Structures are given as structure tokens and as C-alpha cells.
């Protein structure tokens, strides 16, 4: 073996990421030289790029590590990366009709999404504090720009600015926490941190660092009390951006949190569990109560997603294989429900433009029965009513929590899901029992497909539960 060749790391495990990175740069060139006219082509190619990345991911070897162990490819990473790619790809697809109608066709948008997705894939695979931070920043910077992509809209730019300022604050916290962790363990590699902690035990400084790291990360999944940006950004950003925000980044950030707490901080489980318990309860409660007062459906979905992150964290608290499996299942189901719901929200368009109020859905069952039915099913699923998918998501995380002895947490979860059922059911009531408002313009076909897939997924989840739960179990086994 020649020594100079060993300096070059093995690039195979990071093949999809490299593919995306190169692709994004090429598309940027095409967009930059092609101008506005190239936008549809760039959009299409971005979606194709993401689909290809997913295919590569599916057919490459499942295991691998590179860059000195800072980047790992395993079953957990593969599963969550595919989820993320689905979220990003569909987000691009769902933006097409909106962009056309709202004069919002910028080639930067799909390219930024591809770059953000690249960041997400990096953090899912990150096995080192520095790698995690770099990935997170790549993702965040893309998201900041995407949030304010509609430069002519005051609300969009305000949303982007808020997100940027608060995101910078959280990044600061994260970095500060990481430096403390490094300072008290002398390591940045997750496995090495765990080893050091297991040998020497925790310390006050490490606890400080741990809390700051967690605070910086849960900001990305908008868990309470780091959620404040979410409603404003969801409402202010263009709706396709909101759909993107609600799906892919949440999955990636949740994957990163899971990997860090389960691998690096496993020896100090008591500490991080307390933080996560608090954040989880606070998110579930706030998600349940605050959404009741909302009139704007995007704002409502913001609170809804805060609540759902709280439920997913319930599984993480358990810290067991069943818990991680619960988180993975929950995120898969959350992705389907969120994309389906946003497909409906994107279809809320009248001749005079987009509408976003819940009251605009009045009597939808009579103007568009199919959409009303599927949206009702999604709402029932979000509320966690059996036999729809949402019920199983909650079931697996609560089951894991109960098995690990976190009874109070599970009970609070059930109670808040009862409270949150109120606003989901209210949407169903508005659609089915209120006097019909004016109908929406026909749904673009790509939205129809997304909505149809999501509807099939939540309604027939029982049928596909076996393979999905099995795959999630395999992914969860990575850490144990």
C-alpha cells in the first residue's frame, strides 16, 4: 500500500452526497447562464438529481465510514436520508404550480433546496462534532435564504430575517456547547466522547456543554422553548417553502439529535433524558394548546409540527432500541402526513389568489369531496385516531416510553393528543358541516399525486406497517 494514496479518503460511502454537491454546482451554472428561462429545466433536474441520489443510496453498500470516521454510512443513515430525499424531492415538485401562478420562478430555489438537502444528508451521517456543525450550517444557510426567497414580500423577508437571527443565536449556542464538550472530554468523535465519558464520568462542565448542544439542535426541530420562530416563519414564508421546512429539515435534525445522544452521550443518559423530557412535554403541551387559537392554517400547522416533534422526542427519551425505532416510524409517518396536508394547503387557491384561512375550507366536502375526504383522513391521522397511520406513530413512541418506565410522559402525551384532536377535528367539521365557501381552482396534478400517495399511506398504513416497522427496526439496531 502506498502512503500517498492513503491520504486520499475513501469517497464511496459519501457518493450520494458528492453527487448532490457536484450536481448542485452544475445546476447553479446552468441557472446563472440560462437566466429565468432555465428555471423549469433546473427545477426538473433538481428533482431528478434528488431522485438519483436516492437511487444511489438504495443500491450502494449499507455500511461504511470515511473521512477518518467523521462520516458514517449505516442502516440508520440510509433510512433517514431516503426520507429526507423524499421530503425534499416532493417539496420541489409541489412548488412548480405555485411558482408559475405566483410569479415566483427562481432557479436559485431548487438549487438551494438541493444544497440544503446535501447539508441534511451530511448531518445524518455526521459522526463527529465538527462534521455535524458543518452540515448543520450548510443546511441552515440554505434554509435562511429559502425562507426569504420571495424578496418582494415583506412577510417573506421578515420571516427569513427572524429565522436567520435566531438561527445564528442557536448556532452560537451549539458551537459553545460543542467547545465545552470538547474541552471536558478532549474529543470530537462521537465514539471517542462516549468512551471518555464511560471512563471518567460526566462533569458539570460537560452538562453545560450538553445542554447547549441540545438547545442548538432542538432549535432546528422547533421544540419548545426554541420554537418561537416557527409560526412566524411558517406563515411568512411562501407556502412551498413552508412545506419544505415542515418536512425534510425536521427529519435530518431529529436524526442528528438521535445519533448524538444515543452514541456520544449514552454514558450520561440521565442528563440528556431530563432535557429531552422537558422539551418533549413543553412541545406537546404548547403544540396542543396554542394551535387551538389559530385561524391561519399554516400557523396551525406550525404548532402542529411543534407538537409532533414533542411526540417523536417521547420515543427518544426512552433511549432504547424500541424508542429509536419509534422515532423513526414517527418521522416517516409525520413526513407523509405533513406532505399530504401541505399539498392540500397549496391547493387552496381561488381565482383571485392563494388563501390560507381555515374558514376558507368551509363546505369543502361539497365543492371538492375527494380533497375534503383525504384532508379529513390526514387530520384524523394527525390527531392519532386508529386505524390511521398517526395512531401507530404515537403508539410506538408511547409504547417505548412506557417500557422504559416513563409513564408520566406517556400519559401527558396521550392527554395532549386529546386536546390537539380538537383543532384537527375542527377542520373536519368546517369542511363537512359549514356552509360552502367559493370553490378552489382545480388541483395541479403533482399535488394530486402527493395528496393521493399521502392519503393511501395514512389510510392503508395497517397493510404496510409490517415492512415499514421492520425497516425501522433494522435502522434502529445500528446503535445497539
Amino acid at each position, binding site marked *: 500500500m502506498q502512503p500517498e494514496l492513503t491520504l486520499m479518503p475513501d469517497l464511496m460511502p459519501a457518493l450520494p452526497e458528492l453527487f448532490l454537491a457536484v450536481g448542485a454546482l452544475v445546476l447553479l451554472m446552468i441557472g446563472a447562464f440560462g437566466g429565468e428561462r432555465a428555471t423549469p429545466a433546473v427545477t426538473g433536474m433538481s428533482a431528478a438529481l434528488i431522485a438519483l441520489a436516492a437511487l444511489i443510496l438504495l443500491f450502494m453498500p449499507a455500511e461504511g465510514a470515511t473521512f477518518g470516521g467523521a462520516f458514517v454510512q449505516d442502516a440508520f443513515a440510509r433510512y433517514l436520508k431516503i426520507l429526507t430525499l423524499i421530503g425534499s424531492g416532493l417539496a420541489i415538485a409541489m412548488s412548480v404550480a405555485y411558482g408559475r401562478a405566483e410569479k415566483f420562478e427562481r432557479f436559485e430555489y431548487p438549487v438551494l433546496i438541493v444544497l440544503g438537502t446535501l447539508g441534511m444528508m451530511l448531518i445524518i451521517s455526521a459522526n463527529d462534532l465538527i462534521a455535524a456543525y458543518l452540515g448543520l450550517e450548510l443546511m441552515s444557510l440554505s434554509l435562511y435564504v429559502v425562507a426569504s426567497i420571495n424578496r418582494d414580500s415583506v412577510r417573506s423577508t421578515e420571516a427569513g430575517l427572524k429565522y436567520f437571527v*435566531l438561527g445564528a443565536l442557536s448556532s452560537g*449556542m451549539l458551537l459553545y456547547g460543542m467547545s465545552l464538550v470538547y474541552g471536558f472530554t478532549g474529543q470530537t468523535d462521537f465514539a471517542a466522547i462516549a468512551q471518555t465519558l464511560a471512563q471518567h464520568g460526566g462533569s458539570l462542565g460537560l452538562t453545560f456543554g450538553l445542554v447547549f448542544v441540545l*438547545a442548538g439542535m432542538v432549535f432546528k426541530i422547533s421544540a419548545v422553548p426554541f420554537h418561537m420562530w416557527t*409560526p412566524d416563519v411558517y406563515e411568512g414564508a411562501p407556502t412551498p417553502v413552508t412545506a419544505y421546512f415542515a418536512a425534510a429539515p425536521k427529519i435530518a435534525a431529529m436524526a442528528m439529535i438521535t445519533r448524538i445522544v444515543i452514541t456520544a452521550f449514552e454514558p450520561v443518559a440521565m*442528563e440528556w433524558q431530563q432535557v429531552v423530557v422537558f422539551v418533549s412535554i413543553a412541545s406537546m403541551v404548547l403544540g396542543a*394548546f396554542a394551535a387551538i387559537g389559530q385561524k391561519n392554517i399554516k400557523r396551525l400547522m406550525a404548532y402542529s409540527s411543534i407538537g409532533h416533534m414533542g411526540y417523536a422526542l417521547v420515543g427518544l427519551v426512552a433511549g432504547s432500541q424500541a424508542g429509536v425505532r419509534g422515532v423513526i416510524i414517527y418521522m416517516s409517518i409525520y413526513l407523509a402526513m405533513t406532505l399530504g396536508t401541505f399539498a392540500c394547503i397549496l391547493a387552496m387557491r381561488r381565482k383571485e389568489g392563494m388563501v390560507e384561512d381555515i374558514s376558507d375550507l368551509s363546505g369543502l366536502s361539497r365543492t371538492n369531496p375527494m380533497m375534503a375526504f383525504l384532508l379529513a383522513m390526514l387530520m384524523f391521522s394527525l390527531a392519532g385516531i386508529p386505524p390511521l397511520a398517526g395512531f401507530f406513530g404515537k403508539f410506538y413512541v408511547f409504547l417505548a416510553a412506557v417500557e422504559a418506565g416513563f409513564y408520566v410522559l406517556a400519559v401527558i402525551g396521550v392527554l395532549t393528543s386529546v386536546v390537539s384532536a380538537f383543532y384537527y377535528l375542527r377542520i373536519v367539521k368546517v369542511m363537512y358541516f359549514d356552509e360552502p365557501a367559493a370553490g378552489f381552482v382545480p388541483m395541479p396534478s403533482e399535488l394530486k399525486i402527493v395528496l393521493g400517495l399521502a392519503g393511501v399511506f395514512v389510510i392503508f398504513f395497517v397493510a404496510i406497517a409490517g415492512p415499514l416497522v421492520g425497516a425501522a427496526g433494522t435502522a434502529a439496531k445500528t446503535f445497539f
Partner: protein
Amino acid sequence: MYTAIVLLPLLGFLVAGIFGRVIGAKASEYITSGFLIIAAILSWVAFISVGLGDGETQIIPIATWIVSGALDVQWAIRVDTLTAVMLVVVNTVSALVHVYSIGYMHHDPHKSRFFAYLSLFTFAMLTLVTSDNLVQMFFGWEGVGLASYLLIGFWYQRPSANAAAMKAFVVNRIGDFGFALGIFGVYYLFDSVNLATIFANAQGFVESGAEGGGAVLTFLGTPYEPATAMTVVCLLLFMGAMGKSAQFLLHTWLPDAMEGPTPVSALIHAATMVTAGVFMVARLSPLFELSHTALTFVTFIGATTAFFAATIGLVQTDIKRVIAYSTCSQLGYMFVALGVGAYGVGVFHLFTHAFFKALLFLGAGSVIHAVSDEQDMRKMGGLRKHIPLTYWMMIVGTLALTGFPLTAGYFSKDAIIEAAFVGDNAFAQYGFWMTVIAALMTSFYSWRLIFLTFHGKPRASVDVMKHVHESPPVMTVPLMVLALGALVAGFVFSGSFIGHHQGEFWKTALFMSADNHVLEEMHHVPQWVKWSPFVMMVIGLVVAWYFYIKAPDAPKRLAARHDGLYKFLLNKWYFDELYDFLFVRPAMKLGRFLWKRGDGTVIDGFGPDGISTLVQDVTARVVRLQTGYIYHYAFAMLIGVALLVTWTMFAGGGAH
């Protein structure tokens, strides 16, 4: 055949009830009536083969119902003479009522429903009378209660009909509660609800107590020995009979049940429902015969009811109410007969009474039909010439009811009075005098009804009188059939039921202990006793004639002179008012309290309403946190981190 008798009405009910809308009212009427007529004919065949022939007691199993531990309940048909008699009574009257209803309910828009209910009613009663165990009997018992509720409240648009239906149901629940306790008691004592098993063990059970057995039953905290335990059980069972047969204290529902359509009244009063109590006591004669105390109580209640209901009947002005109180009174007669141990006599009166009471009710229905749904006798009068056929039918019914010689009532009623005279329990003499006085009053109110309705000058408005018409044949033919029964049933069957052939007739259906000689002795009473009912009947007739034909203003003067008594009777001894004060109002008050304070304030206040208010409150606060100012958000994040750090430092320190 027996299965067909029981199931045909059920089939009719199902067809008319489920497919009534599809097949239409006409078809429903004909199907249910047709089934009932077939069942009635089969019943007579059964009656002749079992009662008059030498048919043994048969048990025909239909299905297994409940098997749980020692409890084994079969659905089976028990056929003996008593059952056969009841089958005849129930099916004959029911068939005629069905046919009559085709005419009477002609204008009603819900005929299918009505006929379905009638058939259900009949089926429930048939289940009751054919039962071979107490649980099946209870099923029929409750089925009858349900059907009566549905039929009394048939015109559910009328608040009074709904109130009457509820009243009937609730009052019956009280009796049914006793009956249920009685059944539990029997099961507790005998480990079986099967009639054959119970009867076989009853005698030995009581005797075991005489040899010094300990307490076997504890009821209301008091332990009882076998003999007294039997009394307790019998009294509880009789409580059920009191409710269903509208005896004194639990009678209040019966007059109100007049709110139902008139054919329903006929069915309730003549064949189904009220006869259930009498049937039950006769059926359980092997148990009652073992408890002297229970029989004495039965006599007392029966005699009191006979007298009490008759006094009220004297002054009522609603034609149906007069007959209703008459039924109540006649049921009292039957219980007197049962109480003194003359079961055959009681059942015989049930049998004859079914004919003339159905006749009177259907006749009254015909009258009401004729005068445009008027029921107040003070607004009738002089109808004889307009509806002669109905008039003569009513005369036949009245003669039979008052016990005119050779009519049906003459045989059965006089037999009861004689049996009461020779009865040997403490209240037998009381029963005798009460029934004799009641006979006088029966005669008076019955003839008063005839005179007020058919004689004298018309008091109805000219408009109504113009429309008075005789009923169609579909209504008058059943009247004639019943009239025939009212005239000859006593004459033809008295020999079998209560005469010298009664032993061969009843066989083992009724049980009389060795020292019960009532049926023997009642044939050897003094002449004055034999004549007393007849004399009473004549006196009643004469007084009624004087009051309502000769001197029509006499009743008014009498009522004015004895104002207090008149009001007392007119208001039915103030029983409704008393119950209202004692039970209804306190119950309403308690209900209102629990509803307003208990449920409204406490449960809703702290439960749903409280929580939803709390949720709204919390929501409002949380939403207010979302100010939109970026420094608030950043502040929240920093506070959050500080809080988490503090929390983990102080509470978390598990690792160090």
C-alpha cells in the same frame, strides 16, 4: 301445533314491523289478522284436546336459552289445561281485536306499526302463558310491559298518551321488581327456575322446615325459616301480579292506559297484560298453596280492589274509564277466588270475563267511533235508535258483567262469591262481603253506562248526532262473536271449570293441597248466599234506572248533598295525588337537584365545561406569548437554556 300457536304472532309482528312500509298497510292488516285467526283456531283445538280430552302435560323444547352453572334455562312450551285456557283467551280475543282494528283504525296513518305492536303484544303474552320456567315467564312478562308501553303511547303526538304510557311502564316496574326478587328467591331456595322441578320440591321443602331446619333465606336483613321463606317469596311474586293486574296500590296505571286506541284497551283488559297476574298466581298454585299467609294477603288485596275500584266506577263519566275500573274490580274478584284457594274459579272468571270485557270495550269503541271520538257519557244519550246493533251487544256485555242468570258472568262471579263465603282464611268473610257489595255497584255503574249512553235525550251537539252511524261489519262481527261467548261460555264450560268434572279438566295444572275443600263446600252454601249476588244485581239495576231514567236530576242532588264523598270518588280516592306527593314530586326534585347541581355544576363545571374554559384560557395566554418581536423570541430561548442548565445541574446530578 303449539309452536305454531306461539310463533305465528311473532311472525306477524316481524312481517308487519319490518316490511310494513314495503307491503303496505292493507297487507300488514291481513297478514297479522290472518295469522292470529289461525292461531286462535289452533288454540281451540288445543283446548279441546288437552282440557276436554285426556291430553297430558307436554313440554315442547324450542331452544336452549341460558346455561350458566346450575342455571339452565330452556325456551320451551309447557302445555297443560291452564295453558290451553289461556291460549284460547289470548288468541281468541286478540284475533277479534285484530279484525276489529281493521275497521277502527281505518283512518290512522300508522296501521302497519299498530298491527305489528298488537301481534308483538300477543306473542309476549303467549310466551308468558306457555313458559315452563320462571325466566321465560319473566321474558313474556316484560315483553307484555314493553308492548303495552308502545301501544298505550301509540299516538305519541299526544302528551297525555306519552304520560300514560310512561306511567304504565313505571308502575309496572315496581311490580316487576318484586317479581324479579321473587324469582331470585325461588332460584335461591330450589336451585332451579324450572317449574316442574320447583313444584316437585316445594312440598318437601316446607316440610323440611317443620322438622327444625335453620334459616334458609335472608331478606331485608331478617333470616327466614323454610315456611316463612316460602311466604316471603310468594308475597314478592304476588307483588309482580299486583303491578301487572293493577291491584290496589299499584292500580293507578290502568285507567290512564285508556289513552291508547280502544282495541288496545280491549286487549289489555280482556286477554293480555292484566290477566298475567292472575295466571301467574294460578300457575304457581303449588307454591301459594303452601303459604297460608300469602293467600290471606291475596284475598285481602283482591277484595279491597274489587270494592275500591267499583266505588270509583260509580261516578266516572268517561265511558272507557268506567269499564276500566270495572276491569280493576273484576280482577279483584279473581284474586279473591285465588286467595281462598279456588284457583279454578278464579281462572274461570278470567275466561268468561275475557269475553264480556272485550265485548264491552269493543262496543264502547264502536260507540266512540259513532259519535266522532267523544268519550264523555254526559255528551251522549239517546244513541239506541241510531246504533241498535252496538246497543244490543253492549246490553249482552252488561248482562254478563252484572251476572244476569245464565250469562257467562253469572256462573263465574257467583262462584267466586260462594267460594269466598266458605273460604277459611282470615279475610275470606271480608272478601265475601266486599264482593257482594261490589256486585251491587257493578250492576249500578254498568246500567248507568247503558242508560247514559243509549237512553234519554241526545246530549251531543246536533252536528255530531247527524253523523252518528253504525260501525261497519268488520267491527260488528267480532262483537257478535264475543257476545256469543259472553252468553254461553259460562253455561257450557262451568261444569268443566268449576263443576263436578273439574278434576278431570284441570288434571295436574292446578294444585290444591289435601285440606283445601273450597270447591266441594262452595256447592253447599246457604240459599241466601246463593241469592245475594242476584238480589244485588237487581237492586243495582233498579237504582240505576231510577237515577238515570226516572229521575235524571237525582244524581246531581245526591252528589251535591254528599259533596265530599262525591269528590273523593271522582278523584279516585286521591291516589294519584297521594303518589304524586309521596313519590313523583320528591323524585323530580331529586332528579332536578342531581341534574342542575350534581351534573350541571359539579360534573360539567369541573369536567367538560371547566376543562374547555381552561383550555381556552391557556390558549389565549400562549398565543399572547407569540408577540412577533425577535428579542422576545431570543429572550425565550436564553431563558429556556438557563432553565434547562439549572434544572440539569440541580436535579440531574445522577452521574456525579
